[in-house]
């Protein structure tokens, strides 16, 4: 059993938990993920690693309520346990293997959308700890859905917050901020890392393509075992079939077939599930978020 040491609601429907998982905390790196199961009958749910504490042996996870399983999960409290907690899965971010000297000369732009802020955080933090300051764009639908602003501010070089409805920070989509930074604010970058809903990553890639800015994305497809066995998480990258769990989850965003990947995410979505989301999110929900 994997004990929950802290559980809190970060924003509406977005929850953070610190979980005791010494083996995972010992070996995880930015870019990797975990799979959890609540109980004997539970689904295997892939989740983002948002932070880790090697000494305490804990992993911080952040999740959004998007269906039956996460709806149940949000009721877990401090002192409760996960039945299973396995990881780290997937490959670490590429920069983890890069020479620090060459990394220091790189201008890196992170683009985080919604819940994507959580997996971006450990990457920016890792770089910050090595004296590398990266620029970070964080986008949220509205002010109330913005998460981890303070934490991100502490580790980012420059932090640019934007909301779709203009209720906080800049106004508009993250793609607009990318354009503004590059075209009117004199910024230039060597690499972009974008993590968020599929639809956001798709449009970030279309934007960065214009500037020939290499872009890495982190995908979160349907998964069962997470170790390469089932092939449910396959996607097409540069015309080749790749498994997100062993080849990814990070890929060259300019080569990912996003339209196919978004379709494949709908495989087990039911009408009930979509109605649930519509009821929760109302008119602001237009589909394509990767959760519907």
């Amino acid at each position: 059993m994997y004990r929950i040491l802290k559980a809190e609601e970060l924003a509406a429907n977005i929850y953070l938990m610190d979980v005791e998982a010494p083996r995972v905390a010992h070996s995880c790196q930015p870019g990797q993920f975990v799979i959890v199961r609540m109980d004997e009958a539970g689904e295997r749910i892939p989740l983002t690693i948002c932070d880790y504490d090697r000494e305490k042996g804990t992993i911080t996870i952040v999740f959004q309520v998007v269906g039956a399983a996460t709806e149940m999960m949000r009721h877990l409290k401090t002192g409760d346990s996960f039945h299973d907690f396995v990881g780290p899965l997937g490959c670490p971010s590429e920069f983890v293997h890069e020479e620090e000297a060459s990394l220091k000369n790189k201008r890196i732009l992170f683009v985080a959308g919604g819940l994507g802020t959580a997996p971006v955080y450990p990457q920016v933090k890792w770089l910050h700890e090595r004296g590398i300051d990266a620029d970070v764009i964080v986008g949220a639908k509205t002010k109330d859905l913005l998460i981890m602003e303070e934490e991100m501010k502490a580790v980012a070089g420059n932090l640019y917050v934007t909301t779709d409805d203009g209720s906080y920070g800049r106004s508009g989509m993250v793609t607009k901020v990318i354009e503004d930074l590059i075209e009117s604010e004199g910024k230039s970058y060597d690499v972009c890392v974008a993590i968020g809903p599929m639809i956001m990553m798709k449009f970030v890639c279309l934007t960065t393509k214009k500037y020939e800015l290499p872009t890495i994305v982190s995908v979160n497809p349907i998964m069962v075992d997470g170790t390469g066995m089932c092939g449910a998480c396959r996607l097409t990258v540069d015309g080749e079939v790749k498994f997100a769990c062993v080849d990814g989850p990070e890929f060259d965003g300019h080569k990912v077939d996003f339209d196919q990947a978004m379709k494949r995410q709908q495989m087990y979505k039911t009408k009930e599930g979509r109605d649930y989301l519509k009821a929760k999110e109302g008119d602001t929900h237009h589909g394509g978020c990767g959760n519907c």
Partner: protein
Amino acid sequence: MQTDVLKKVPVREQDAKVRATNFEEVCLGYDKEEAMCEATRCINCKNAQCIKGCPVAINIPGFIEKVKEGDIAAAYQIISEASALPAVCGRVCPQESQCEGKCIRGIKGEPVSIGKLERFVADWARENGVKPEGAVEKKNKKVAVIGSGPAGLTCAGDLAKMGYEVTIFEALHEPGGVLVYGIPEFRLPKQDVVAKEIENVKSLGVKIETNVVVGKSVTIDELMEEEGFDAVFIGSGAGLPKFMGIPGEQALGVFSANEYLTRSNLMKSFDENANTPIMRGKKVAVVGGGNVAMDAARTALRLGAEVHIVYRRSEEELPARVEEVHHAKEEGIIFNLLTNPTEILADENGWVSGIKCVRMELGEPDASGRRRPVVIEGSEFLMEVDTVIMSLGTSPNPLISSTTKGLEVNKYKCIVAEEDFGATTKKGVYAGGDAVTGAATVILAMGAGKAAARGIDEYLRNS
């Protein structure tokens, strides 16, 4: 009980029409009377060929002799000396090409039903609380076993019996490997059979740690250098499912057999109360002709579909066991042989709507010795289906080989291990099962686990 000495005592099975709608076990096995009667057919050959046909060399005439006498507990201990998983092997071993294939009785008439006798003995032992005998004295050495499938369980069980301290690391949340995620309930009951056999291995002192992905959670080097393991056995299994590489394979409703079976078997999605979903298609095509294809097809059938096996060669070349093909046919699986898919079609929402196929004929033998299937020109046709399950085998998983220094792989990316005792190119590290051979059978993996246990014992005695 009267019997024709040339024929096996028939085994009771669930009626085909009934079982096609449930996940209960197909074969009901012998009772004691039937088993004792079948045992009398064994002529107790001096130079028993059946033992040579068994990858773990069970003393077959020895245990059958005890069944004949009605001393089932003694029969169980004889089997346990060689096999950690008799209730599993009695159910899923291809006996027709192993022990029973060599049985002298088989020359004129049917061989002794060794598999069904083994199953009876193991089931009887379980029902009567008889456990395998453990180690007499402990040795002060630790062995890590990676993977709790047939290879790992066998290796761990044998090492524990020799007195070693053994820990199995399992990546999934439940131990058993392919016995749990791959082979369906109706062929191998999970709670009554697999879980109990694993309990038996644990009762020998073996520890099992689930949710550890070796290569990710911890590396082999860390296990040996930081956690004090003196030797390691890798039995991590086959790996990544293969796809055909034809257009449309990413359409919604195309699954690997691994995914389909894992959902149904490990995640229990055949049960309405389980949380993990599975697609219940109306008309399903399973591409491939191996045992896994039969398992996937018979699972889909039980979930309510009309099921077609699509296989590019003819019936004779089907790699699946004859018994599995026979059962599949009885249950109503339709075989579209000498047929090969060329494209998967999808509707406007991306869901599978059909597969384009061509008809094949058999030409000259290929490298595998089987006649090569050749496309018949102009034979293209459309098959309307809503689900496609690809059962084309697997390719090795790089998780361990890519994270272990000094562990060599061959050109197929399988771990290189010496045949007799499973030694790899890394000192103190042994390997066996599908991770070494590519996808094969439960019993071959067990044979390799057994050989490696001997290799590890030898290594630890000399180090």
